[in-house]
Every structure is written in C-alpha cells, then in structure tokens.
C-alpha cells in the first residue's frame, strides 16, 4: 500500500510534519513497515483540503488531530 503525504508549502503550514510523524509512529507500532510504503510529495494540487494524503491514489484530507482515526479507517483496515 502506498501512502503519500503532501509536504508542499500549504500542507506543511497546516501540519504535514505532525501528520507524517504520527503516521510513521503508527505504521511502526503496528509493524506495517513492510506493507505500507510511506512517502512525501510536493503538492497534490488540492491545497484547500490540506493536509492532503493519498492511499493508493485515493485522496483524503487529514489533520494532525484526525490522523489516528484516518490511520485506523483507511490504512490499518486495508493493509
């Protein structure tokens, strides 16, 4: 599964770093490192919906506050 977090300027200012850090920790704590390919990209073209995260090309709007719910629903369930 490929999970890509937008680290472009707009998303960065909305909290890309905590989102990435929390996702890294969650992936590690669920021992999903082999299954989840976590990466970054500069701008997914949906700056209004930041922080933008794609899971196998499906776009989601995530914030540092919602990242755990997002992980449980869209990554943990499907990985």
């Amino acid at each position, binding site marked *: 599964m490929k999970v890509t977090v937008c680290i*472009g*300027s707009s998303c*960065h*200012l909305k909290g890309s*770093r905590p989102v990435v850090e929390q996702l890294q920790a969650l992936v590690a704590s669920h021992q999903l490192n082999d299954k989840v390919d*976590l990466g*970054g990209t*500069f701008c997914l073209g949906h700056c209004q919906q930041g922080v933008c995260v794609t899971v196998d090309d499906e776009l989601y709007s995530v914030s540092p506050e919602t990242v755990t719910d997002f992980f449980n629903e869209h990554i943990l369930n499907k990985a």
Partner: protein
Amino acid sequence: MAKFDTKVQLLKYKVLKEVARLAWNDQLLDHIMDIPKTIAPGKTPTMRCCVYKERAILAERVKLAMGGNAEEPHVIQVIDIACDDCPASGYEVTDSCRGCLAHRCEQACRRGAISFDHNHTAHIDKSKCVECGQCAKVCPYSAIANRKRPCQNACKIKAISITEDNAAAIDHEKCISCGACVYQCPFGAITDKSYILNVIDFIKRSEGNTKYRTYALVAPSISSQFSEVKLGQVISGLKALGFHTVVEAALGADMVANLECQELVEKGILTSSCCPAFVRYIKTAFPDLTKYISHNLSPMGAIAKYMKEHDPTAKVVFIGPCTAKKMEVQLENVRPYVNAAMTFEELQALFDSRNIDLASLEEDVLDNASYFGRIFARSGGLSDAVAEGLKEHNLADSFNYTPCVCNGIEECRTALLKLSHNALKANFIEGMACVDGCIGGAGCLTHGEKNKAEVDKYGRQALEKTISDAISMLG
C-alpha cells in the same frame, strides 16, 4: 518596470523577454531575425557607434539567450564584437600630476620605476613596474590611475586574458562560472548563456502539468529579490507561469547541513560543497585538496534528488542568483536530478514575457525549510547551520568545531592555500565564490545592503525552527 542594478542587465532582460515572448507563442523561428530591430529600432544609435553594430551585437545576445552553441558547454561567454577593448595598461600617471616636489610616488616605489621629466611630471617605467599600486596610494592628487579592465578586475582567479586583437578571452580551464565578469563588464560583452527555452518547453509540453509536473526549485536568496512585491506574490507568479508548485532549495540545505556536520566529525577536515564555483575552483586550482570536499550534493542537488525519487517524470527547474548553477546542472552526478537552471534576471524576463503583473496577484505560501536552511543564502549561514547540526546530533561537546567563513573567492583562495600548507587554523571551510554569499550572485536582479537582513528575516519566518524538524518529513 523591472528593477536592475545596471542598464546592461536591462538590455539582457529585453532580449530574454523578447525571445521568451516569441517562444511561448511558437513564433520564435519565424521572427528570430526581427528581435535586434525590435530592441534597437534606430535610426539614432543609443548604445554604440551605429544601429547596425547595436543590432549585430543584439543578434549575438539572441543566440546566447537561446542557449548558444550547444556543442560548447561553457556557460560564460565573451561576445567579441561587444568588447570595447578597454585600456589595460596598468598603472599610469594622468594629467592630474602637478609635478610636485614631494615625490611620494618615487619614495613609495620599491622597484625604482618612477622618474620625472623636465616639467617634474612623473612617469612609470613599465619594464620595472610590478603593478603593486603603492604609488597610486600615496599620490596626494590621485594622479596615478590603474587602467585595468573591469572584467579582469572582477575575475579574481585570473581566468581572463586579452587576445591579439584586443578583446577579452576566458580561459575555460580556469573559469569557475561565477559570473563576476558578467556583472562587472560595463559593455555587457561577457554574458551567461540562457536555457529559458528549455524551461518554456518543459512547461508547454507538460500541458498544464498533466503529462508530467514541472517544479520550480527556488534558492533562498529570492527573499532579497523582487523587493517591490511580496514573496507570496512571486510564488503565485511562478504558478501562473505554469509551474506545478514551488519548492525551497533551502530544504535541500537543511538536508546538507544534517549530513555535512556528521561527515565533518568523521573526516576531521571538510570543505563545503554547496557553491559550485567554489567546488570547481578547488578541483582546478587545488586538485590535491579535492579529498576534503564534502561528498554531499549541493542543496539544489539534494532536494532535487528527493523530488525525482518521489516523482520520477518530474522536471525540476532551479531558479537562483547563480550562473555557476548552470554549469553544475551539467555535471554527471547532478544532471539526473535537475533539468535546467535559470537566474532571477531570467525569471523576471519570463514573468514579463507573459505579462504577469506580480503586484496584482494574491499571496501564495512558501514554507518547506528551517531557519538554518534559509540562511545558506548569505555568507556565514552554512557555518551556522553546521554548528546547529552538530548540536542537534549531540556532537557539539565532543567535537571542537572551528569554521572558516570564506566570503568571496579571494578569501577562499587564502584559506585553501593555508590548508594546502597545513597552516589553516580551522577544520571546516565554508566557501562561497561571491562576496556576501549567494545574495551577491551575478544572476540577482539587484544587490543591496539590506539583502542580508532580508534573508535573516525570511529565515526567522520559517515554520520549522530546527534542521531535524525540517527534514523529519522527508522520511
């Protein structure tokens, strides 16, 4: 109206803008011959002896604006017919010599090169003179002038000579592509080749970034440029030009600082690898010191590599103050990551070729890097960032860090000479070929005293305050 330091820059800009305007409209091939006449309509000459010479020179400028001779890789080129064959006779006594009694000039000259005629006027014997300049310093009438060509004066590594037919010539074996001569030649006879046509081509062929994405990778010195508008408006302008998005090269600087501090501890002595002109200078003038050059890519190369790894079809265009970057992107280890390099001068021409009025645009955001990545743009910033890197890696106490900040290629030379004789009392050389660092680059629109303060201010505005926070997102 675009703001530049000199009218030479303005002339170069007019050519670039016209070439770009025609290229966007697919009319360049049909109208290429018209450009000189568009810029110098005549009949009265405004720059040279006649409009025909003006147009002949402009035709050469058009060629270089289009990338010049593709088989000739050197970025800095002399336009022979534009060279005004400036006097280059060295120290000479001028009419201002009043034939005084003091003869301080004679006393100051250790070579006995000064004599006096029957009017007591001083004369310099060129066969004895070593161009030390002491006579000129002591003359109370400033009557002794140094007739040196501005290009040769600017080229501190002495890569410029004079040909038999009196024009300037660049020794490309020595040239480090810093562009000092480009900025200093009062006739615009030395210029940097432009690759803006490649950039326009990337943008057009991406079909609105649907076929692939074209990224603008901007140097942190942009904070001291386009001072009439807000930085956020420049970012909007770049997107209006057709770039997918804008990324800070300063994030690459954070990556470099993070690795370079560890490499320094490992090796014990290190020279920076950020400035391509400095790196080339070591390789050409001090080949024995090549082993001390940091193995890191430059900040531009480091972040572009990351971008290409995550978006393999991307086109990455570096935009900065630097002519040497155009040389760096041709290097084998950089070429895979950066598709083209251009200067702020060229960016201004691209904006205006599309009639993009920056002042009327909304402010977009630019925030990828930390304070430390951003201050790479000015002399001393890289050394500060390495100090911070050592601190963040808990190496600051165990490693005695002694940086030597070299501001401009002359200071670089002095430090490298000392290093080659094991006489340098420092273990890290920050080498920047341009005085003041990148903000002194030849491709800047303007150079001002406030530029350093602008860079520091921009650094403080960064969301991330540490290097490790800035790079933590990169995984």
